[in-house]
């Protein structure tokens, strides 16, 4: 009696479909995880730049305190103030700039006893702006006007 070999066509097809689904799932998982990781990295870098500016600000405070302690009058105070410091009456201000478009604006009120009181300490980041659209879309929008 002739024995027939087992036909594998349908099984191979099924397995191929399953492999394709699995491949899609794997790619989606990997891309999702990579995007999450990239966002976490970005947040980590932003935090580092925030506190780099904080260090600049605290160093400015130390320099301001040193200048106030060494100054005898307003004229000598102006020469002793830290760089990039603007004095308007009893108010001194500075704008510390960070590497990635961040800035720290500090303002302090000079007190009668030769000290200071911080009245502004605000960090902000410049809006990077939207990226230029690809030429194709630019052309399309231009044609629609």
């Amino acid at each position, binding site marked *: 009696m*002739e024995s027939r*070999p*087992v036909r*594998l066509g349908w099984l*191979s097809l099924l*397995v191929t479909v399953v*492999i394709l689904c*699995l*491949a899609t*799932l*794997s*790619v989606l*998982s*990997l891309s*999702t*995880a*990579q995007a*999450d*990781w990239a*966002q*976490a*990295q970005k*947040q*980590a870098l932003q*935090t*580092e730049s925030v*506190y*780099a500016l*904080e*260090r600049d600000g*605290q*160093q400015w*405070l*130390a320099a301001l*305190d*040193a200048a*106030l*302690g*060494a100054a005898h009058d307003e004229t000598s105070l102006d020469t002793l103030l830290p760089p990039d410091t603007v004095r308007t009456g009893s108010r001194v201000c500075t704008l510390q700039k960070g590497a990635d478009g961040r800035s720290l604006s500090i303002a302090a009120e000079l*007190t009668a*006893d*030769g*000290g*200071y009181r911080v009245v502004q300490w605000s960090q902000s980041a410049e809006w990077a702006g939207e990226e230029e659209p690809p030429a194709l879309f630019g052309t399309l929008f231009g044609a629609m006007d």
Partner: protein
Amino acid sequence: MHKSRRGAAFYVETILLVLFLLLSLTVLARMLGTARQLSREARQLSCAVRIAQDAAEQLAASDSREDFAVLLGARQTEDGTLARAYNAEGAPAADAIPAAYTLLCRLEETAQPHGVLLTAYFTVCNDSEALYELETQKYFCAQPGK
């Protein structure tokens, strides 16, 4: 002869299909493993950044080095580093419980003409590696309330 040729073709096809399947399974399993690893690392990094930033804010609000240690709720290690344990959600944990994250804080004082500039080096670790490092400073005026 005809039957044996058909049988041989069947086995060759089987072997090739099995090889293709094994290769696919290996690649896909590796991709899934990488995705799982990346996802875990992203979660850990986000948590570590939050812990370090929280500690930096507590330093900014403290009045002195000792006040910061109290505010942080940290214990001092043998080499003078401050250490604080955190659970998997990034909340402070009791020292007795195995910690998911540990915050290590090394402090350096730099004398200034009228005060002290304290530099804090924060390192957030898990069991095996340092996840995130952050450096910040706080100036303490010698005359408080000045």
